């Protein structure tokens, strides 16, 4: 891996972190409304996995979607404008935080019914297969979604049809406030979840961006070769509540602090310095750049106009 690639991983993760912090601030100021689910703590997953994709691969994700959008390269200003409900937003102010889209970048949403994005993603994979193209679709979902019928149905469908799809489980151990032990039939592990569908699976530390990247690259390679779907479980933790409305009283401080020791925004720069890959001043320069990008995104979002009233009835039918 080139030095620039390492720095790009850091840059993307830091951009997500600062973007989410800014979202939190602007939510508190009343400039962002609705449900807001922050990706803070989980950055290594979106950045590691999406860095393993080609630009023409499809991404379909869940409602905690800011991280994936940024990792795919969506414009932070247009993303912030969407959260501010402005016409310059990525979904023209009609989607909001949970429904981010950029079809030109094959970023096919942000979907807010738990597990509903999984069948949709199979459709993008089906289209690639139908056209004999070697593009891959990655679908992200959380531990909560693994109990939806759509998850199991689509794992089966994808396996039967050998669809070029990567099922990517972001296990942050809580579906809203309910711990996985209370909703998973075997009490804890997801490691055997794919076995029943004859889908190749792997587990990875979702706080380790390099491990996520490498694991995803291996899976994508198999899928692109036509071996059918793969499944990855990455363990991670969100540092904040489920949404801004959630004080996260169901978790104890010790658990949160334990995970914060693994914060990729602390561990990864340390690794880069200790391995002699990058210097602190190089990283400071990235930090400065991103602080400016975030300031600009908030300025752009604030100053952008709201949608015209006629937009209410536009985009319903093609």
């Amino acid at each position: 891996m080139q030095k620039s690639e390492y720095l790009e991983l850091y840059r993307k993760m830091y951009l997500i972190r600062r973007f989410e912090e800014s979202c939190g601030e602007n939510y508190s100021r009343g400039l962002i409304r609705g449900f807001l689910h922050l990706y803070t703590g989980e950055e290594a997953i979106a950045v590691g996995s999406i860095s393993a994709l080609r630009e023409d691969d499809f991404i379909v994700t869940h409602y905690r979607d800011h991280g994936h959008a940024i990792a795919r390269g969506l414009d932070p200003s247009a993303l912030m404008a969407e959260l501010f409900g402005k016409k310059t937003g990525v979904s023209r102010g009609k989607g909001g935080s949970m429904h981010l889209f950029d079809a030109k970048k094959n970023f096919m949403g942000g979907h807010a019914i738990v597990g509903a994005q999984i069948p949709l993603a199979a459709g993008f994979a089906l289209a690639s297969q139908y056209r004999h193209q070697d593009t891959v679709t990655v679908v992200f979902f959380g531990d909560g979604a693994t109990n939806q019928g759509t998850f199991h149905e689509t794992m089966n469908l994808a396996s039967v049809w050998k669809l070029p799809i990567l099922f990517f489980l972001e296990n942050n151990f809580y579906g809203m406030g309910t711990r996985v032990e209370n909703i998973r039939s075997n009490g804890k592990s997801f490691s055997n979840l794919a076995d029943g569908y004859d889908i190749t699976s792997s587990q990875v530390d979702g706080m380790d961006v390099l491990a996520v990247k490498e694991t995803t690259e291996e899976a994508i390679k198999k899928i692109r070769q036509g071996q059918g779907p793969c499944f990855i479980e990455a363990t991670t933790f969100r540092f904040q509540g489920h949404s801004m409305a959630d004080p996260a009283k169901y978790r104890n401080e010790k658990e949160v602090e334990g995970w914060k020791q693994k914060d990729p925004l602390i561990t990864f720069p340390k690794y880069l310095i200790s391995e002699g890959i990058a210097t602190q001043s190089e990283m400071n320069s990235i930090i400065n750049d991103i602080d400016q990008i975030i300031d600009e995104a908030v300025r752009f979002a604030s100053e952008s106009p709201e949608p015209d009233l006629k937009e209410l009835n536009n985009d319903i039918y093609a």
Partner: protein
Amino acid sequence: MTEITLRQSIQRGLIEALDGDPDVFIMGEDVGAYGGAYAITSGFLEKYGPERIKDTPISEASFIGAGIGSAASGLKPIVELMSMSFALVGFDQIVNMAANIRYMSGGQINVPMVIRAPTGAGMQLGATHSQSFETWLCEIPGLKVVAPSNPSDALGLLRASIKDPNPVIFAESAGLYGLKGEVSDEYFEVEIGKAMIRKQGTDVTLVSYGHGMPMIEKAQEELQKKDIDAEVIDLRSLNPLDLETIISSVQKTGRLLLLDTARKTGGVMAEVAASVQSESGDYLDGPIIRVGSEDVPWPYSRKLEQHAMASVPKIIKALEIGYSL
């Protein structure tokens, strides 16, 4: 003109689409080796192969969703549901994905997909297999809903539905698959959103769609014997609704009977009635009459089922009571 059944007209439309556009494919439960639960796709697998005639697992949510995703990628899936009642299993995909995705993406994603499903009661299939959820789906912005009543409209609407860049629910009255009718050998389409005046008349406007049309036409004949000249309108499309055609007819006749073959409460005719009332209530000589199926779960017993269904005698009786016709 050739006389064919409604089943044959749908087959003709599907074959034409498969032949004309490599992006068109069909998927659903038992559409391949079995040939379709109602034998619509009989012989298709042999002709087009398993890539284009895809048998799916019994997982409606999953294959409807896969249809949506493939349509969003630019393919033109035609998804067959074995029954409109089974749409419930995939309702979230139909409503939250197919209908909403264009709007919530700010117009970036289109879903050029057709969902075909047999609908309606009358075949003693009991409560779970006899329902008409096209009346629920026609409330959803982003979806179009059509319900042909004869072979010619079935072909014309199917052509328009497959060409449409939006998700279209194509409700096929299961009781009409064997209905014969003349179909033009020339290419034609039926525009989605346009009702059809089947017969001009001056005394009363009778409106229905799909399975209700044979009943309405019989009722019109009964009325003719009493020298009552009824105008007969076939909605053909439940969303968008062609209220204009109905309203101008009511302004002429002053009387309106609406026939729903689905359960009466909350049916599409409730919306038609409310719209006519607010748009041209002044022209009405009496209350709008609605006839529909009884608000009960569909029973198995033939006697009970027939009793629950709308019928010609019920229509005639309602007109006698409502308008003394």
